[in-house]
């Protein structure tokens, strides 16, 4: 497959430094088209779905890479396959439902059918009707398979790549990101629910936001308003070598007694702003390492979330230059008992479109999108915590946001 470079970028970057980002990257439709080619269809690994969502041979789901619909299927021999959800004949959508089960998939338009590895297995009227019409002798079914993607499964997460020679997956993640995914996704998962948030902004604004550890305690005031004491927590941020993946975390300081910690967490000093039902924050240190929060991203669009016992994956999908969708899958483990599931469901109030500590992330990208409109010649600033994209043991930094731009600029050649 020929690699399309989709033209040369017309956006002027102030310098090679990672501390300055032209606002035009959020509004320019040509640049958006280049991103689709060079990032989403480029040498990247894109999260598609969970292995548990295609648990049985014959199961398939429809996902996306960029704006392109992709079918992820478990073939009858148990293998995982991904292909563009587009008939090889006239380009019609193949799967019309979000999920399905069967041994093949047939296009409604002209009845071409494919097995779950994406190979064309049947063409309606291939030999014509009553010896009339039909495909010419040079037509070979094997020349008309679905457009297939490379796939990899890691810790129950399935990723796909359009690249013919995608990067080695473990190198793509980096050892620290890999081990931090494995830390959370360490046993069979169970889906507790799904929701999709439609965001009124360019996809990059959300991905920057979720990597941005600087804003968290400023924009999201839930914990401080209710005076839920978190001073005994320390944290930091890990950025992989390429810059595109990160993990930010907070961890309980073991030097403080855990009973004190628990009491502090659910009590506040002022009666006015006390939770009427603090059971929402009750939970257990289920990973046994004192890490109370870990937000992890894999370039270009996956978030793996552990906020106390609230677990989720979020898939970020671009939907035009000024819109994106955030697909939330709320998770527990298959062996959770009812009490554990209830902890997770209660704590899920913290996240999602109505989340106490995340609803603001739904609108803040739109604030940027609206404010840069028509005045895109200026640049945003990313100087918190220095100028590089290194791992840091504090969170008053924009290191992981700079990491995003490091990866982005390398792939985009800008």
């Amino acid at each position, binding site marked *: 497959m020929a690699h399309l470079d989709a033209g040369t970028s017309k956006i002027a970057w102030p310098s090679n430094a990672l501390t300055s980002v032209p606002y035009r990257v959020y509004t320019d439709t040509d640049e958006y088209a280049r991103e689709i080619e060079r990032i989403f269809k480029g040498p990247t690994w894109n999260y598609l779905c969970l292995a548990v969502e295609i648990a049985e041979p014959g199961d398939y789901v429809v996902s996306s890479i960029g704006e392109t619909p992709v079918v992820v299927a478990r073939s009858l021999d148990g293998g995982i396959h991904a292909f563009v959800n587009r008939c090889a004949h006239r380009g019609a959508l193949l799967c019309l439902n979000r999920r399905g089960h069967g041994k093949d998939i047939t296009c409604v338009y002209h009845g071409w059918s494919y097995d779950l590895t994406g190979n064309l297995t049947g063409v309606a009227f291939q030999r014509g009707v009553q010896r009339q019409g039909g495909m010419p002798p040079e037509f070979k079914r094997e020349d008309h398979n679905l457009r297939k993607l490379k796939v990899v499964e890691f810790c129950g997460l399935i990723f796909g790549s359009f690249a013919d020679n995608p990067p080695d997956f473990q190198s793509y993640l980096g050892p620290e990101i890999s081990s931090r995914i494995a830390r959370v996704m360490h046993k069979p998962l169970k889906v507790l629910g799904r929701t*999709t948030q439609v965001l009124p902004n360019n996809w990059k604004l959300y991905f920057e936001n979720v990597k941005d550890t600087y804003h968290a305690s400023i924009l999201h005031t839930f914990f401080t308003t209710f005076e839920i004491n978190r001073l005994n927590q320390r944290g930091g941020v890990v950025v992989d070598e390429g810059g595109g993946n990160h993990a930010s975390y907070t961890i309980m300081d073991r030097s403080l007694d855990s009973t004190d910690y628990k009491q502090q967490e659910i009590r506040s000093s002022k009666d006015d702003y006390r939770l009427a*039902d603090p059971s929402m924050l009750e939970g257990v240190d289920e990973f046994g390492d004192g890490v109370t929060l870990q937000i992890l991203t894999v370039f270009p669009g996956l978030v793996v979330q552990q906020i106390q016992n609230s677990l989720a994956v979020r898939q970020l999908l671009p939907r035009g230059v000024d819109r994106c969708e955030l697909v939330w899958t709320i998770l527990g483990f298959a062996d959770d008992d009812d009490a554990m599931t209830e902890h997770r469901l209660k704590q899920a109030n913290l996240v999602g479109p109505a989340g106490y500590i995340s609803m603001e992330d739904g609108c803040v990208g739109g604030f940027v999108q609206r404010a840069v409109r028509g005045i895109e010649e200026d640049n945003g600033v990313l100087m918190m915590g220095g100028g590089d994209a290194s791992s840091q043991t504090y969170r008053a930094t924009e290191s992981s946001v700079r990491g995003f731009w490091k990866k982005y600029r390398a792939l985009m050649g800008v």
Partner: protein
Amino acid sequence: MDEATRRRVEALLARYVDIVDQDRLEEWPDLFVENCRYRVTSALDYRDNLPHGVIYAVSKGMLRDRVSALREANVYEAQRYRHIVGPIWIEDDSEFVVRARSNFLVIRTMHTGEMLLFASGAYFDKIDVSTDPCRFIERIVVTDSDKIDTLLAIPL
């Protein structure tokens, strides 16, 4: 069920809409019994019996916390809802409990004047009619779409 009970159930549903749409959210938790359940979910999750709620409250205290967070902590642009609720189907569940189902549309208007058909769906209610006024034991809000524009601040 007698006509008086039906009228009390209708009054509860009307009052709910009035309180939410008139931004009198402080009164919202009092429409529920102490050990209540309030959940906002999608038709797909509801069909698949997935327990998660975009909002998930299992006590009146959690409803109060939702309101105080909206008032004191969360950041979102000024907006209001207009609920349009259709006819109510009511059936007896037990001597003091009825089940009710009704359809709704919610139009969201932002302070900028932008309007959106924000949600459509159905309320699945379990109502304690032993008191006057009667109260929700459970209100499951099932939205037809599983997509939510920008954020869900005010309860549906």
